[in-house]
């Protein structure tokens, strides 16, 4: 697990913002690929690689495949240059967008989601996020596991009644419309009900206390913060220079 001292919250936030900026402006597949590899190594050290792999398999991969089909095969080009059809240009564009999405997800996971909940709440505190806003952000970070649970429930319910005759890909895809509809109704309905119960139970107040009690600032290292910022700045320079 990650044992080096963490950077102060403000450095962490700034470095992440810089990294995001670099990701958005980077145009090189090699550079984006290398950066992704680097972040994957970090996630592996943090023990978060499996969680990211699940996210990538469920979100990034389908989106990437869709982009390949749309820009590589259907439009055969990039949004900026549609004059001459080119499958290569379309595929390259789709690859860059997919890598950017993967990298954004990986950096976010490494910078924020790897933190234990009290530390994360403390971090959000240091960004002056409190009360309901804090509860909404923290619960949103748990939204993905909640959505996954709901989808699994729907598939399990169909299986238990023999309504999913087999587990072939096409059969699973057929469950999607039903799953998505039910997912939004049940997840949103339950989310609203939960938000009410946070108020009634005083959980928002507790969340604030939990964040305040987590020893955030004192065990942070300014050197680690400077290192994070330096890496992020180097990344932005590499992204803007057009290398390689």
């Amino acid at each position, binding site marked *: 697990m990650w044992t080096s001292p963490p950077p102060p919250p403000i450095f962490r936030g700034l470095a992440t913002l810089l990294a995001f900026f670099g990701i958005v402006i980077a145009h090189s597949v090699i550079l984006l690929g290398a950066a992704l590899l680097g972040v994957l190594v970090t996630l592996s050290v943090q023990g978060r690689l499996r969680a990211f792999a699940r996210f990538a398999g469920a979100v990034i991969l389908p989106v990437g495949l869709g982009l390949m089909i749309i820009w590589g095969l259907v439009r055969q080009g990039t949004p900026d240059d549609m004059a001459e059809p080119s499958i290569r240009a379309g595929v390259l564009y789709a690859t860059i967008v997919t890598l950017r999405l993967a990298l954004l997800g990986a950096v976010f996971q490494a910078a924020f989601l790897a933190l*234990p*909940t*009290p530390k994360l709440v403390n971090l959000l505190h240091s960004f002056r996020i409190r009360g309901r806003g804090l*509860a909404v952000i*923290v*619960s949103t970070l*748990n939204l993905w*596991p*909640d959505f996954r*649970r709901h989808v699994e*429930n*729907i598939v*399990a*319910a*169909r*299986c*238990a*009644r*023999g*309504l*999913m*005759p*087999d*587990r072939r890909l096409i059969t699973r895809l057929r469950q999607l419309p*039903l*799953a998505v*509809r*039910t997912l939004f*109704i*049940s997840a949103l*309905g*339950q*989310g609203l*009900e*939960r938000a009410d*119960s*946070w108020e*009634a*139970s*005083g*959980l928002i107040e*507790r*969340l604030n*206390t*939990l964040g305040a*009690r987590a020893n955030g600032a004192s065990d942070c290292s300014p050197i680690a913060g400077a290192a994070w910022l330096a890496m992020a700045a180097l990344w932005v320079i590499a992204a803007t220079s057009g290398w390689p």
Partner: protein
Amino acid sequence: MDYAVLASEYRRKPVFLDGSNFSGRTAILRNWCSECASAGGRGIYVGPNVHQSVSSLVPTVADELLLHASDSARFDRLLDVARALGLDRCYDQSPFTLSGGEQVLLVTLCKLGLGPTFLGLDGTIEELDRDNAQRVIELLSSELAAQTTTVLTSNGYSEDRHWRPAWRLPASGFDHAETVQKRPCLDSANFLFTPPSESGGLEVEDLSFSYEHHAPVLRSLNFRLEPGKIYSLEGRNGVGKSTLARILTGVLRLRRGRIVFNDRDSNPWKTPGRNVAMHFQNPDSQLFADSVERELVDLPMPARRAAAAFAGTNSQLTEHPFDLPFVLRKRLALSAVAHLSKPWFIFDEPTLGQDALASDEIVKMLRRMAEGGSGVVVISHSAEFIRRLNAKRMRLEDGQLHNVEPSAQITQ
């Protein structure tokens, strides 16, 4: 009963609010919660769909306990109780992956950690095994509940209530009871059984299972169940009853062992629900359509009509299942499964949220299914329900299945 009197006289003394389905108990509990809040206290209601009371703000069981109780002086004591209840082995799990009973234990501890003035536990105690139910009552009578007046409701048979409340209060004596005008009833006369096209024994050989990164739940199970009979699968909360049921149905993947149906190898994971259909403990995990009518649309027409009538939802066909009260959601989920034509059925806590009259109707329904040639396995903590079913009893303990009666045909 005036809320103020209740709150002042029954701290640390759990009160049982007695009544049948639709007698207005939920409304009474919710009303007391509001009155408590109006009086400046903290009133908390926990309903039978207990997963809804999990905060969803933190990822693990340990964090959930920390969030609710870390700033209270009782935190260490609560952790001791959590350990005694066996929750410590689930600390790194998501609260949503716990079994129904374990969720009840966690939520009860968490809510007590908030130091409520009033705590309404609506039907949650039914999901607990006998020992855990007793432990929860003791907990609600302990120093940890020093500021708390707890009122609980429970359904099913009175014979199953081994725990003794400090006071028994009839729900019929309250104004809220009058707000329920029409009481949909569960009537086994409406049940339409369709015999399976093929029936046969269900056999398990050397079945083992463990969840990822966790200790084995099931260890080398061997048993054979005969069609046309009713079996009960018993055991403590979190022992793996539902896991076994989900493997037999094909909801979970068989990792090691063999399942044989009618003397032929069967892989339920590849063809889920073909030979074994399952009714889940939590109806919210079983319902997926946007209206009662669409929930039953996969059944043949006569069974569809019968299923709606049996569940008592004939007048609510266009309503969203999640808009129905828990008791009706449970009946709808039960009916949707029971009206399938399958060789085997597994019912996980079918009487949850159902009063004694409704439970009797479920007994009649299950008997008809067995008489019609289907095999039935019932998972239940209600000893009286199992007795009335005259089921062959099996008990799951430490990953092993044991005969409770010599007559059960379980080969070890």
